[in-house]
């Protein structure tokens, strides 16, 4: 026997029938510990899920939201949407959407993607939606993880980029065409002038006054039209890239003064029109070609005048935005506005909304290229029936001079 028991051992005062209390205590302690660990892990996972910049929602097969991550609240305001239908929460509908990535994913039991533009708090947002089934039971998904990535800004930037690309291509093409047309145009113009001089000598020999008058009129028309062509060609030539070496300091407020002087006469013909000025007197200068910038502002103001049929106001505003180091000129009118579908084509050459004969479709396109060549941007906001705002932004020149 390993160690001989004593009488005390047999009495066993210190020994009782062992119960499971201690085991239970250990178990409970162990469970508590593992519970804490699970909680910690859960928090960690939740933190990861919340840290995802996209909206992550777990949705049941009956379209009810089980949970969402933190990013949900960045885009959608309001309470925890758990328990509500996804179509109500995300789309404000009262039944499932016709096009539904979740439904597709469920049917295919595979990941499905969808791109959708959704109105959130009155603002259109572009979402890339990924629906992945998970939580399989008996081969059928129990839930769907829906990840909604807000790509509104990316889409905007991409659209802008495509637009800029397109405009550059068109500009290059137009400038090329202009260049090619310039020479024959010069010849036509030269020979027309020659014909006019010959007409002076020929005139006494032409007995028929009517024929003479016709000849003179036709020559005048040819010359006028040639001049018009020249103007267009000159405008188109501004589309081609230039160096900024020829830029000088320009005060935009002075440019506006200039423009107002030019349109003085036309203003008198539109008595219902008012021009309001909101000019920042401390506006920094910009680098550029004064004539071209004048042309841009003039163009925008003339367009604004055209947009206002009878009564209305044009507001010219200059603003300096220090954060962006950007100087902008706003031309706002209370005119007819521009329909959304037309807005994207606005800056393309030969696109015009004006009646035939009234506009060439060159003006805004020229503005776009001029401002582009100045390293700036031109943008438009418009509400049909209420008016439009054209905003030209240019980089401010170095902190050397301010307008005074």
């Amino acid at each position, binding site marked *: *026997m390993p*160690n001989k028991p*004593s009488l005390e051992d*047999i*009495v066993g005062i*210190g020994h009782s029938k*062992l119960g499971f209390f201690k085991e239970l205590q250990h178990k409970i302690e162990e469970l508590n510990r593992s519970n804490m660990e699970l909680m910690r892990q859960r928090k960690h996972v939740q933190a990861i899920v919340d840290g995802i910049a996209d909206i992550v929602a777990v949705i049941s097969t009956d379209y009810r939201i089980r949970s969402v991550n933190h990013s949900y609240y960045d885009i959608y305001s309001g309470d925890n949407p758990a328990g509500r239908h996804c179509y109500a929460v995300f789309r404000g509908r009262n039944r499932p959407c016709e096009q539904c990535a979740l439904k597709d994913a469920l049917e295919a039991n595979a990941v499905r993607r969808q791109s959708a533009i959704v109105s959130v708090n009155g603002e259109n947002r572009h979402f890339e939606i990924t629906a992945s089934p998970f939580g399989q039971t008996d081969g059928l998904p129990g839930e769907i993880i829906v990840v909604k990535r807000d790509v509104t800004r990316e889409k905007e930037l991409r659209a802008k980029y495509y637009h800029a690309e397109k405009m550059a291509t068109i500009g290059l093409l137009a400038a090329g065409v202009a260049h090619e047309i310039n020479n024959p145009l010069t010849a036509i113009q030269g020979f027309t002038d020659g014909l006019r001089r010959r007409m002076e000598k020929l005139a006494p020999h032409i007995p028929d006054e009517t024929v003479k008058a016709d000849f003179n009129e036709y020559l005048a028309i040819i010359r006028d039209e040639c001049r018009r062509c020249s103007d267009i060609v000159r405008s188109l030539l501004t589309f081609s890239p230039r160096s900024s070496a020829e830029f000088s300091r320009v005060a935009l407020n002075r440019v506006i003064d200039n423009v107002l002087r030019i349109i003085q006469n036309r203003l008198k013909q539109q008595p219902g029109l008012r021009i309001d000025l909101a000019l920042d007197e401390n506006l920094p200068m910009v680098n550029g070609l004064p004539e071209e910038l004048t042309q841009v502002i003039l163009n925008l103001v003339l367009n604004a005048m055209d947009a206002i049929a009878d009564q209305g106001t044009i507001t010219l505003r200059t603003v300096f935005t220090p954060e962006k180091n950007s100087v902008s000129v706003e031309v706002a009118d209370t005119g007819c506005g521009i329909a959304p579908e037309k807005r994207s084509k606005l800056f393309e050459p030969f696109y015009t909304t004006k009646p035939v004969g009234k506009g060439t479709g060159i003006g805004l396109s020229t503005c776009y290229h001029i401002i582009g060549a100045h390293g700036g941007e031109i943008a438009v906001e418009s509400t049909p029936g209420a008016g439009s705002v054209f905003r030209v932004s240019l980089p401010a020149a170095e902190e050397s001079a301010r307008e005074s």
Partner: protein
Amino acid sequence: MDVRKFAVPEILFGAGSLEYAGLCARRFGAEKVFLVSDTGLEQAGWVGQVLEILKAQDLDWHYFNEITSNPRDFQIVEGARRYLEAGCDVVMAIGGGSPMDAAKGIAMLASSGGRVQDYEGANRIQRPLPPMVFIPSNAGSGADISQFAIITDVERQVKMSIISRTLVPNISVIDPRVLTTKPADLIVSSAIDALSHAIESYVSNIASTLTEIHSLKAVDLIMTWLPCAIEQPGLENLEKLSTASTLAAMAFSNTSLGMDHALAHSLGGKLDIAHGLIHPVLLPPVMRFNMAACPAKMADIGQIVLGKRLDTHEATALAGIEKLEAFFAGLNVSTRLGQIIGDKQSLEKLCRMAARDVCLLTNPRDATVADMLNICKEAW
């Protein structure tokens, strides 16, 4: 050493108590009961009845009967393996000392692992055991009450005593009806075993009032009712023996035993003979030897056996022992050691082994190997 401890399991006692065995197991959260028994009880129909009772409680079970009398260590290891393999959660035993001791060993190894030898001695079990519900089928062993388990180490040829309060079963379901199917000789040997428990616990050097009262009542019941039970083995008489056995066990579980059991364990380990048959041979000479240490207590026993007191303690005690010898002789059992073991040569070795037995610790009188050898020779 004045502080004593008295610990017994919950006891369900009475004809019909067996019916509650399943409920008891269920109360311990049982889903699958590990039932230990032997072929004798199967044949008597008791195992089938227990299974019915378990079924009535919607309990699943695993039945184990691969044990012999004087259960062996390897049988315990196999039982524990089966317990764990079957995923049981409560140990139930119906039977005599062997199935119950085996069940204790199985519960022990199932919860703590290792070998039976690892727990030999006192208070070596460190982990709680599965709940144990025991149904004794004899009125003698007291294994349904006690903190002891005796298991044979086959290799060393010794009976290992495992002592632990944790071995006390949770519930003892004592239904005297189970005794009715027992043959008369088994009733007798069990009752003698219980009587030896009662006598040895009474004179144990850690006996206390809490145990003595049980010991004396047990002696009284057995002396009075065993002859009646032999003559008329009806439920009423057997119930008295059940009570006696239970009382004796309540005492000896807390007091341990003495030299008679030390020698009996030693003989049993060597010869694999029925435990109860050794006591008629050894108990009287052991009592005579111990009388010197506790004449008053021996006289108390003598008074019960005789039904009266003589002039002195010694006289009462000696007369009592003589009456006891006559009582044993009347039971038609061997009363000489020579009738049980043929080989006198092995006596010394057996006594040396007995000298190391835990039971000797609580014997009222210190005994050497030579003392025991003398006693054995006296009993030859």
